């Protein structure tokens, strides 16, 4: 079946980030339709009926999230989470780069649906040049055309949109930490309960926090109807498309918009062009490093929110880092562990301490000093910091690559421990730098 991209349609179009180009390609028509022809509640219904699920990773139904905002609340916020920081995920970045207006349009429609009068786009700090600057310019253009500000398109609806640039912390992708960051606090996730954003969010007010891709889908649903959307992808529970980021040892790395429910095989070997010449597929992170690994035995699993949990992993933010037979899995996981010990915010004891001990133990294993007891220790340690024992999921995330790689590649760990070197030609990683001694 020929596949028409929905949200990446403007990627690659020259100057797609300029409002004239965007409008000439049908931009802001959905906004006009939404504001003129729909009551806010109808839009919430529409998105609910479309079955659109949150693209940030958890897959929570977007319409239901909006419907949790209390009706008649005097002060409500819409926040777009554009803090894409997951290792292996770069789909939002490309969308933001090429098509800032489709996000702005989605934000305005979403804000209207929950009756918010102030919205934020929280963008990862590293995206500032040129993505953030383009977004800033795009917002200014939208104000100038009357899509933002007072009395939008003469409908009497007012909305102010602020671009908030983060300062570079992975944890800000967690919605409550993101809200803390906007409030000017140190971004440490808030305990839920009681801080569920739809009831107690930004500045303590009801807040909808939606991912870039989720909101970018909204204008298309408004234009084409919920019915249209429910026929895409893998209905009924996984309609629509998803932008998959392929990276690592694969022929054609890049972002690919594909229907939800596509098989891993088609994604890697169809879209991605398969392995490098002479290599064989070994493992992949289906949703960034924060999801348990998949291996060759899983190639026929369908990539959607429900099929992946059935094989013990998650769709996450669809950052697929492909590893072939030249990759030493313990070394790869050691690299991932460096990320988590660096990015743990330090609030919860298990994650703060556990991420650095995992990193330290993996360093030993990958540097010829592994012990027999290290593998049970790693598993027990991951259990002590995972299983929702921390405020946010970072504690679980940090353990996923460890536990899943031990599950599928135990023999590689054993090889390291027994022989003190890699089973592949992989070079040991550089010196571990986590201990600190400073004045």
């Amino acid at each position: 079946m020929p596949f028409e991209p929905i949200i990446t349609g403007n990627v690659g179009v020259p100057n797609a980030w300029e409002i004239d180009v965007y409008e000439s390609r049908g931009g802001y028509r959905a906004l006009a339709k939404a504001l003129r022809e729909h009551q806010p509640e109808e839009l919430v219904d529409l998105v609910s009926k479309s079955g659109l699920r949150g693209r940030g990773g958890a897959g929570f139904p977007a319409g239901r999230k909006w419907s949790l905002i209390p009706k008649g609340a005097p002060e409500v916020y819409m926040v777009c989470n554009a803090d894409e920081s997951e290792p292996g995920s770069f789909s939002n970045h490309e969308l933001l780069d090429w098509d800032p207006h489709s996000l702005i349009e989605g934000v305005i429609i979403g804000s209207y649906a929950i009756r918010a009068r102030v919205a934020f786009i929280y963008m990862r700090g590293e995206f500032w040049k040129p993505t953030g600057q383009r977004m800033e310019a795009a917002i200014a253009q939208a104000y100038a055309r009357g899509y933002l500000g007072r009395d939008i398109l003469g409908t009497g609806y007012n909305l102010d949109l602020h671009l908030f640039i983060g300062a570079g912390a992975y944890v800000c992708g967690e919605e409550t930490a993101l809200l803390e960051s906007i409030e000017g606090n140190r971004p440490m996730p808030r305990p839920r309960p009681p801080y569920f954003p739809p009831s107690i969010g930004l500045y303590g007010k009801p807040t909808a926090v939606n991912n870039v891709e989720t909101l970018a889908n909204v204008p298309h649903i408004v234009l084409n109807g919920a019915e249209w959307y429910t026929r895409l992808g893998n209905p009924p529970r996984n309609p629509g498309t998803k932008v998959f980021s392929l990276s690592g040892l694969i022929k054609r790395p890049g972002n690919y918009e594909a229907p939800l429910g596509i098989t891993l095989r088609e994604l890697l070997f169809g879209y991605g062009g398969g392995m490098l010449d002479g290599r064989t597929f070994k493992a992949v992170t289906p949703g960034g490093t924060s999801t348990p690994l998949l291996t060759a035995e899983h190639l026929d699993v369908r990539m959607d929110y429900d099929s992946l949990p059935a094989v013990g992993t998650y769709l996450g933010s669809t950052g697929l880092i492909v590893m072939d037979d030249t990759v030493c899995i313990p070394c790869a996981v050691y690299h991932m562990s460096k990320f988590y010990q660096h990015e743990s915010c330090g609030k919860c004891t298990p994650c703060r301490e556990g991420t650095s001990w995992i990193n330290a133990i993996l360093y030993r294993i990958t540097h010829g000093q592994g012990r027999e007891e290290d593998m049970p220790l790693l598993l027990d340690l991951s259990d002590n910091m995972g299983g929702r024992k921390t405020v946010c999921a970072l504690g679980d995330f940090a353990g996923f690559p460890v536990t899943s790689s031990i599950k599928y590649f135990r023999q590689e760990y054993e090889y390291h421990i027994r022989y003190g070197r890699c089973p592949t030609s992989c070079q040991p990683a550089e010196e571990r730098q986590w201990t600190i001694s400073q004045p």
Partner: protein
Amino acid sequence: MDNLATVTIDGRVVKVPRGMNLVEAARLAGVEIPVFCYHSKLKPVGACRMCYVAIEKVPGVVTACTTTVTDGMVVNTKDPRVVKAQQGVLEFLLANHPLDCPVCDRGGECPLQNNTFGYGGPVSRYVEPKRHFAKPIPLSRRILLDRERCILCYRCVRFQKEIAGDETLTVINRGARVEIATLPGREFDSPFSGNTIELCPVGALTSALYRFKARPWDIRSSPSLCDQCSVGCNVRVDTRNRQIVRLLSRENAAVDDGWLCDRGRFGYEFANHPDRLTQPQVREGTRLRAAEWEEALYQAAQGLRQVVSQRGPGTVGVLVSPRLANEDLYLAQRLARAVIGTSNLDYRLTPHPTVSPLRPDAASGSIVGLEKARTILILGADPLNHQPVLDLRLKKAASLGARLIVVDEKQTDLAAFARLWLRPRSGSLDTLARGLVHLILANGQVNQEFVDRRTEGIDALRARVADDTPERVAASTGVPAPLLEQAATLLATNGPASIVYDRDLGASDDGAAAVLAATDLALLTGNIGRDGAGLYPLVRAANEQGALDLGLMPRRPSPPTPSPTGGEGGHAGCPAGGMTGAEMLDALRAGQLKALYLLGVDPLRELPDDRALRDGLTGLTTLIVQDILPGPAQELATVVLPGAAFHEREGTLTNLERRVQRLWPALKPPGKARPDWQIIHDLARALGTSFDYAQASDVFAEIASVVPTYRGLTYGKVGLKGVQWPLDVASGQEAGSLYEDPGDTRLAFTPVAPSTARIV
């Protein structure tokens, strides 16, 4: 609808208020849930992850501190998953903890030790070296931080943000590199910083004064009071080797809410000072020499007798410190009035302020009552500097929803927490206060029912403020009229409202009129006589309220002298009139005083250098100085009598909310020093009276029998938490607010122009 939820915790069924978190609910059920970051006074954050519990029908384990009870909840704190997770948390915490307990101040009273003992696993499985930091690093000259011991519960940071409101501590870095830190280039300069030492669940924050001085098992602890200001925070005095090693909070929710300010917590060194007076001294020619009590008292008595007989009692003065206990003050005024026969008696050296005409002269409400207020007018008061822990209470009230209106030209600490901050030009406080009265009258926001039933004199008031229109007030104070309108409306319509002002405000001309207008505001809006609605003239010194209650000043009603038969004997022999402290100093400068008895007061230390004053003191025939440390006046003394410090004696202090609280002896006075009441008693006997008080409680019993407001009070009743006077005669219960009962007497609006309203 029932406000309680029924919860089962480890098989124990308890009913607890809805909305309570599980840590507190478990406490009520008699089940301990171990915590590090949770503290009942701070918002739960769920950071340490120690308080895991398992709840039926909830997957996995959850933290008790962030979980509120629901009806029918079944909680298990001993579930195997809980036990494992808690062992895991302790293993994580200890993996980087230096385990230097033998040299750690916290060792022996350490929650980390206790929880490890109670909930920890047997061994650590990590072989990597621990995280290392340079240590300790001084956060301020009072507090040091050991970053290796820190378990990052963030209690200190949260205290500074949520309770102190100054955010002087912050968190830097991420993950295992996280540190508690001050802001760049700043030191930990909060006036409440010491509380973080007590909050710290490990030995990460240590006191520069206490470090390595003692271990918890070789100190003795006694209850006591902080005597640094009028709040009267309850403290625990820890002593070792006859020295105070530290003061800790002895939480009294009604007074201090469990907090101390740094002045109180660290300000005890005077008591340990090597120069403490330990021996009476008498003058011999140009110098003082040590003497025994008998000789010193004899000399003092002789000196007084001589002056009284030669120059008359009107040339004798007695100055007392408002930090002395009620027992000292009461005997001092009896000595002055009934024994020496002089009314030259005062507790202050500066002119007395004009005060509210309402009687008794005291705060009408309670400290804890402020939490019930919806609006609080803070008029020319700076609690942060004069009553620091009250500052915390006002911030707490604000966080509970009270709207603060700060009226002060200076930017006081509370201005940042205020809904409105009015900045009248210097000297125009009276105009502003009258302007508020005018607005409430003009806008018809008067609580007419209260005014009709309880007050008198509103017509005169109406006439007096007729000209204080918002326009004029705005012009002369510089405060925009809309702000005045908002302030008046808040006060009148967002009740209950309390008015807090510095009692010393009345010492200036504009302040005096403002104080009177404050009373008018309270009466006009009916904001007096119930929780949250009160008039709080803030006294400053630890027992200033006691000095007011016991009449330690001339020309004010004084306690009658008890007659030998037990009844009240009146004021026989006590001359009318008398000089205030300020007048006595003038008389001293003019050479008109011949004898002076200084109790804990040293005018040469407390007032600017003054040649005439020094000459006056030099020219005295008799100068008796009673104090605990040397001072400049002692060099001129004829007799020096060594007193006891707050922790070396029994006695009572009355705080700014009329709460009478007890002092207990933690140590014996050094050398031959004696409690002040006892010295006065001994001096009175040397003067030939039949004073006969065996112990401080005897003096207090007499106070309770002759001072109406103290009726019914005993040491037993005062106990550990103190009692607010007056006790209800019938029920024996304390009254939180004065002026509760309408009674017969009406409360009067300020009757006259301020210049003639000055009491003293």
